[in-house]
């Protein structure tokens, strides 16, 4: 079971996609919901049997696949990928729930592509062979592009093409770098590569290594996205259907940065870290400032996402135990909160068919249930203590303060700004005088299906806010070791201190 569970989780969605093409149309959402819930339950097997005391990869499966070139089917997870796999499992049923009524044409295509992209995401997080990893990386691109293009709003096609070009060109370079590594070492295996990297780092390969590390960095940075490569994000998110907006940004790129950029090229990463930290801080401020001036709710959410993801970049490249753990925790909590936020926006759009803030005013009176959930989610995104957003942000800021005090204190401005745009938005959309559209409308408050999607998510935000140690145990067992050995500040402050502080216990 332990050796094949990851394979099972990864490839079950493909089987589901196959079944979706055969089922009658009216059963599709229900079937996909049950199917993704089942997969989510399977992913819960992982944390239940994950041994935090053990080093290296767990649930691993390493089989020779192709002899020449030497490609292995090698999957496994560690504390970094453990919760990301569970996260992918968690978000999928939510995505189905919000698509239930919205997707009213080509449902078969929608659900099969949706399941296909889930396989690709799982594959990316569990692959330990670069060729396998790249295969999934490529595979993730096509379903997402098609989903944005077909099911997006009116400019969906343009946004899809923009997304595709932004993602594909750097990943072509990524493949060049992967092939270069293979040409130099004769292996695609991540574990072997990692152990061979120091022998590879000789004078003759210095330029090659630098170029390869930059190719890796570029491909991942676009996927995150990191400022200034974020141009696809706002269009992509604002055009994409809700289920895709929830998963579009962040985790793939950030995970890959940590695992493959920092993990394979520690020296180069350490050298380029100050730049990345600076870009992270710029991203935080830039995203927040742009969010402040948006009139379209979904674009606001897109720029808020950019800000939140830039916190993770700052955390990763500050290279302290606290900041890196915080960054990984922030990936999880941001995905949950932003996921909930996008779901709520989707629900709002279902009711009013607009994201325009000028037309949406004073909703709280009409839809109190929705307003409650909205406020909690927004507060979690701001980073209010006892909610999940606080833990990650606090650890990132305090951790990076040790290595980059000036930049970290600048980044703190981002927290204030995010509170500003979120609260302002809440005030206008929910508590102002009702606009014409809202006053005239007789839209129903949040429905049972929507409650079913949102309340668990909101509950999770609270739990993640107060009991972060539960998640942090696995993360802290793995992630700080990613820091380059000569990271500027030694890892003295163990995570338990932070956990205690953030839990307010």
């Amino acid at each position, binding site marked *: 079971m332990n050796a094949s569970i990851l394979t099972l989780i990864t490839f079950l969605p493909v089987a589901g996609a196959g079944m979706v*093409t055969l089922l009658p149309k009216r059963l599709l959402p229900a079937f996909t919901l049950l199917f993704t819930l089942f997969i989510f339950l399977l992913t819960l097997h992982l944390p239940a049997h994950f041994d935090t005391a053990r080093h290296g990869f767990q649930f691993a499966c390493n089989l020779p696949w*192709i*002899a*020449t*070139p030497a490609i292995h089917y090698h999957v496994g997870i560690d504390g970094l990928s453990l919760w990301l796999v569970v996260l992918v499992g968690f978000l999928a049923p939510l995505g189905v729930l919000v698509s239930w009524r919205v997707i009213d044409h*080509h449902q078969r*295509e929608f659900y099969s592509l949706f399941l296909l992209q889930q396989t690709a995401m799982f594959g990316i997080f569990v692959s330990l062979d670069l*060729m396998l990893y*790249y*295969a*999934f990386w*490529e*595979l993730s691109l*096509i379903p997402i*592009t*098609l989903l944005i*293009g*077909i099911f997006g709003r009116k400019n969906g096609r343009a946004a899809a*093409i923009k997304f*595709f*070009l932004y993602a*594909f*060109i750097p990943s*072509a*370079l990524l*493949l*060049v770098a992967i*092939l*270069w590594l*293979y*040409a130099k070492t004769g292996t695609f295996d991540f574990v072997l590569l990692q152990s061979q990297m120091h022998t590879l780092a000789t004078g003759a390969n210095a330029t090659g290594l630098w170029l390869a590390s930059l190719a890796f960095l570029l491909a991942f940075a676009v996927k995150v996205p990191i400022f200034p490569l974020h141009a696809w994000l706002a269009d992509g998110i604002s055009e994409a259907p809700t289920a895709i907006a929830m998963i579009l940004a962040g985790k793939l790129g950030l995970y890959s940065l940590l695992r493959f950029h920092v993990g394979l090229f520690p020296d180069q990463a350490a050298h380029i870290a100050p730049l990345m930290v600076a870009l992270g801080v710029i991203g935080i401020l830039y995203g927040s400032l742009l969010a402040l001036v948006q009139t379209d709710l979904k674009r606001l959410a897109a720029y808020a996402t950019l800000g939140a993801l830039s916190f993770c970049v700052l955390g990763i490249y500050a290279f302290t135990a606290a900041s890196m753990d915080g960054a990984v925790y922030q990936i999880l909590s941001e995905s949950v909160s932003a996921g909930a936020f996008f779901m709520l926006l989707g629900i709002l759009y279902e009711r009013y068919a607009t994201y325009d803030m000028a037309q949406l005013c004073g909703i709280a009176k009409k839809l109190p249930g929705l307003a409650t959930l909205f406020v909690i989610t927004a507060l979690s995104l701001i980073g209010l203590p006892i909610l999940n957003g606080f833990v990650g942000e606090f650890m990132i800021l305090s951790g990076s303060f040790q290595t980059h005090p000036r930049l970290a204190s600048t980044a703190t401005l981002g927290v204030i700004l995010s509170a500003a745009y979120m609260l302002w938005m809440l005030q206008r959309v929910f508590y102002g005088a009702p606009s014409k559209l809202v006053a005239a409308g007789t839209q129903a408050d949040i429905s049972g299906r929507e409650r079913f999607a949102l309340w668990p998510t909101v509950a999770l935000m609270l739990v993640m806010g107060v009991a972060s140690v539960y998640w942090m145990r696995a993360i802290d067992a793995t992630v700080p070791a990613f820091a380059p050995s000569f990271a500027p500040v030694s890892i003295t402050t163990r995570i338990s201190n932070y956990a205690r502080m953030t839990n307010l216990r």
Partner: protein
Amino acid sequence: MTAVSPALRILPEILLTLTGVLVMVTEPLLSAKTSRKPLGIFALLGTLAAIAASAWQLHLPAGTAFFNTIQTDAFSVFFHLLIGGILLVTLLVSLNYFEGHSTYVGEFYALLLFSAVGMMLMTSAIELLMVFLGLEISSISTYILAGYRKRSAVSAEASIKYFLLGSFATAFFLYGVALCFGATGSTNIHSIATGVASGSSPLLLALALGMMLIGLGFKVSAAPFHVWTPDVYEGAPAPVVGFMSTAPKAAAFAVLLRITYTGFGTMSHIWIPLLWIMAVASMTIGNLGALTQRNVKRMLAYSSIAHAGYLLVAFTAFSADGLAAACFYTAAYAAMNVGAFAIISYLSGYDERRVHLQDYAGLAKRHPLASAAMAIFLLSLIGIPFTAGFFGKFYVFTTAMHSGLWILVTIGLLNSGLAAFYYLRFLSQLYMQPYDAAQDISEAPAQPAFVLGIAILVAAVLVLGIIPNRVLRLAQAGAATYFPCSGTNAAEVHTQPNLLR
């Protein structure tokens, strides 16, 4: 080594020729109204026998026959199997293509068989004149096949165009052979290799090499010798295009491999840059050309130019792995391209009712299975992971990287991103556009033979993408006949004047 009867070395060719002659002889004996299907089935059986014979040849010790003109080794067997497979599938999918439209189609089967004989000869010949014979046999048959929709002007135009330009290109090849003979005193590949290694008359040899590259470049439709491709593919019957966009290319690539790797191995400093340029030009021109096309067959024609470019990337690597990658990619490309054209031939029928992209709008509703198969072929052409196209490209670019061609690899990979657009456009036409019932054309239901052919191709695409080990081993064994110790790089080859035993 025990003597192997020379006839056994060309057993597949003999079997196919006999089948072809029998089909040809029987054809006029049948009345005009009789169905020609039995002849097609007979041709199928002959093909199966030839494939079995090729597979059996693997057990023969590698060696030459007919005064050093023919050489059977793992390499030639690989291409024999490939060409035999393409022929088999083409026969399967075209078994009903002419029903009720054209008479005397017996000769169609015969021509297909003869053309395959020519191609097989090309792949096992190590004597350039024998190569030329094979080239002529296969070319002349395909010229006629291109014009086989007899009453269609476009088809006739395609045939004439192909014939005129093709014979011109063949003349180039022949001229190259003649110059080669002038420079080295032989037309045998191995003697040429010795002559080339001796370093005498390099200018003449370079000229000969250039001439042969032009001739073969035409056959594989590599830029800048690609101009004929869209016109011919547009006019020729779709099953024939599937055949002639893969099998003759495979044969021509095999010859190109023999000439460059074996014959002119020591002059690689001349042909590597040339092939480098041809590869870049083919990929870029092919993909950019395909982007602007709305005619499906023209689009796939440009895509085939681009795929010839990817193949040339593997050539340029000039290593055992590069050779194996080239062999593998030919097979992968054959599976997906024959498949794509077979589906087009089914959906648009004999009179080519569906020519433009918009004619395919929403067809997934009407033809779910055919569209699903098409989707698999298109995804493989894009190079989506877990299909033949992905692994083929991956292997090609891996070997090119091994030889340090990182600029070429970068250009190639960026190109494959560009390519995704026009394939996806076709795919989204099939699946995402509303179906126009007014355009409804009642197709004959798919025949079992056709379904079998498509099933074979789909299986091939998936097998080559997911569990390619068997085919890889054969390709690598073929490559090893050129590079005795596997993994030899180009630098070491230079020190060995005679690459073969």
